[in-house]
């Protein structure tokens, strides 16, 4: 029943939610303060803002690149065993993944400094991220076995997964450097709650014709699973102290790391803006509650072998000797050595063309198409059109997504942004983001892969982001 529930959760998670960290709707949506977390060099005109604690930024994304709930569980009259074998076991390959992330802002505050060109922001957010690539050869071994697969090497490297939960404490400076360039930098301290990763596995399992016996089974393994904080969390769950343990580890009682975000906005001309950002250039040093499991070595067995020399040792336990021998050649060990992990670094870039009527800014400034002072905020236009690139560093190499977007402002009280995104999960991802400004109250909601809602079960990708902020532009 537990396995069944887990499979349900995995498939439902893959089908109804969505993958990845790509926040193409929020990126460069400068009416929303959280866009500064995606580009510390974004063009802002706030005087100050503060997010509602725990409500200012909520995002959840998950996805599966290979199979959807509908592929397996559709009531289509097909045998589930055929669907399972053809679409899951054989249909996916090792580049397919099941991944997800969430982010919950605990605190987010920003304010303009004495120098009106400088904007500061700081806060805390909790973030979880996980990815597991399709462990194809393990799945084939489990679903079909090794019989009738003489000389086929089952690749142990197919196990590739990582995940973490971390609190991030950040402080950012956003500065309008000159008429054309706004730059930003954000420093981060990571307080790791838990981490697991197994991404550098090597080896194989193969069945061959034996030298003496009919068959030989060979295992060559160089495998490692590093964990940090997992045992503390499990123990805390048993002891009923889960909340305090997570709180302690999340506030500098766990693993610590440092990181940096960089970003810029560059006005190519009056109406064209180029932006780029590099996020989470950082690392976490795991030195707390470490448990690393290793399996290294090689062994070939041909069953219990009784050779002439053994015939005199009639009391030996040959079976136990065989087991001991294998364990000696391929020891399974546990250690508590510290380790370093690098954060999944992300890159965003966009090119935007603004057109239509300029919108009156709410900022306390001499804003307009040709501001009198270089310290003034550039005018916003009713329409924005452009393209975006997103890349993230993953265990099997970088993943990219390309988006085209259109943004429309309705006065200063509402703005919408729609995107069309192509990535490894889908080529029909249309998203829509809505930003509402009611006095000082700012509310935003974004969701993508909207076409998938025509058949939710067939979706391999979906996400949402929402939040509430209080924003002030100062008094005009």
């Amino acid at each position, binding site marked *: 029943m537990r*396995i*069944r529930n887990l*499979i*349900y959760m995995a498939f439902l998670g893959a089908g109804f939610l969505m993958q990845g960290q790509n926040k193409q709707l929020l990126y460069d949506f400068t009416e929303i303060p959280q866009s500064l977390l995606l580009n510390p060099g974004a063009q802002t005109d706030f005087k100050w803002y503060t997010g509602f604690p725990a409500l200012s930024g909520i995002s959840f994304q998950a996805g599966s690149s290979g199979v959807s*709930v*509908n592929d*397996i*569980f*559709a*009531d289509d009259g097909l*045998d*589930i*065993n055929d669907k*399972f074998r053809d679409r899951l076991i054989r249909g996916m390959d090792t580049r397919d993944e099941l991944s997800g992330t969430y982010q919950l802002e605990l605190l987010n505050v920003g304010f303009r400094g004495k120098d009106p060109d400088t904007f500061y922001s700081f806060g805390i957010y909790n973030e979880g991220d996980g990815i597991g690539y399709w462990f194809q050869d393990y799945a084939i*071994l*489990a*679903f*079909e*076995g*090794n*019989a*009738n697969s003489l000389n086929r090497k089952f690749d142990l490297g197919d196990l590739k997964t990582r995940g973490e939960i971390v609190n991030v404490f950040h402080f950012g400076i956003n500065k309008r450097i000159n008429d054309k360039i706004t730059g930003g930098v954000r420093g981060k301290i990571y307080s790791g709650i838990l981490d697991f990763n197994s991404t550098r596995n090597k080896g194989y399992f193969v*069945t061959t014709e*034996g030298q*003496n*016996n*009919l*068959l*030989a*089974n060979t295992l060559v393994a160089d495998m490692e699973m590093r964990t940090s904080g997992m045992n503390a969390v499990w123990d805390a769950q048993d002891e009923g102290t889960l909340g305090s343990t997570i709180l302690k580890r999340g506030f500098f009682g766990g693993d610590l790391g440092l990181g940096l975000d960089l970003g810029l906005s560059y006005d190519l001309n009056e109406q064209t803006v180029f932006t780029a950002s590099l996020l989470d250039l950082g690392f976490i040093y795991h030195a707390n509650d470490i448990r690393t499991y290793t399996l290294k070595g090689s062994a070939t*067995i*041909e*069953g*219990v*072998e*009784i*050779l*002439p020399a053994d*015939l005199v040792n*009639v009391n030996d*336990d*040959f*079976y*136990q000797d065989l087991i001991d021998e294998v364990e000696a050649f391929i020891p399974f060990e546990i250690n508590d050595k510290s380790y370093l992990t690098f954060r999944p670094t992300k890159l965003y870039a966009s090119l935007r063309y603004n057109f239509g009527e300029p919108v009156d800014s709410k900022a306390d400034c001499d804003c307009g198409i040709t501001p009198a002072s270089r310290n003034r905020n550039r005018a916003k236009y009713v329409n924005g059109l452009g393209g975006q690139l997103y890349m993230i560093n993953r265990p099997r190499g970088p993943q990219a997504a390309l988006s085209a977007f259109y943004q429309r402002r*309705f*006065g200063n009280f*509402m703005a*919408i942004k*729609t995107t069309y995104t192509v990535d490894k999960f889908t080529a029909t991802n249309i998203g*829509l983001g*809505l930003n509402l400004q009611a006095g000082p109250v700012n509310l935003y*909601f974004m*969701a993508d892969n*909207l076409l998938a*809602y*025509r*058949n*939710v*079960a*067939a979706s391999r990708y979906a996400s949402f982001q929402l939040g509430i902020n209080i924003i002030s532009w100062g008094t005009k």
Partner: protein
Amino acid sequence: MKLLKALVPISYVISILFIGCSDKQDFDQYEDLSITPTYEAAILYIETPESFINAITGVDIVTQNFNFDAFATDIFANRVIDGVITYEVENTTSKELEITVEFTDDGDNVLDTEVFTIQAAPTAIDRREIQYGDGGRPIDIITNTSNFRVTARNNGDNSSTSNIDDAKITLKSSAKFRLRLK
């Protein structure tokens, strides 16, 4: 008017989020999912040279119990459906030999017996496949087996030698079993 324009996309989003539909799903299909992989591995190899046989006076060359817990482990015994044990016996000695393989449980009770009588060389390799479960011998034999007892009997003499180099008798065996994981 601006508000009216704005409400169009908003209402669209809200509509699709709330009336998002789905093809009919049947999660009860999970009950029909059957995961029954077949695994194979060698189990026992015994080699006895002719010189050893000639050195033994009497008919019984060797009788030996071999502990073999692999079949009795829960992960195997609780999941095995059916399978085949393959034997291959080759005799290159100058005498007729008889090999008996007995499957015994923890109480040393004999559950199954396989006897091979092999003529003196030159003779063909005796290859046998014994089915357990699925119309073959009861699968309980396998799940209750915790030892093999192998007896080699010399039906010939103790002096002759084969003209084949490295004359010996070998017993090779492997097991191929289907397990139910789901």
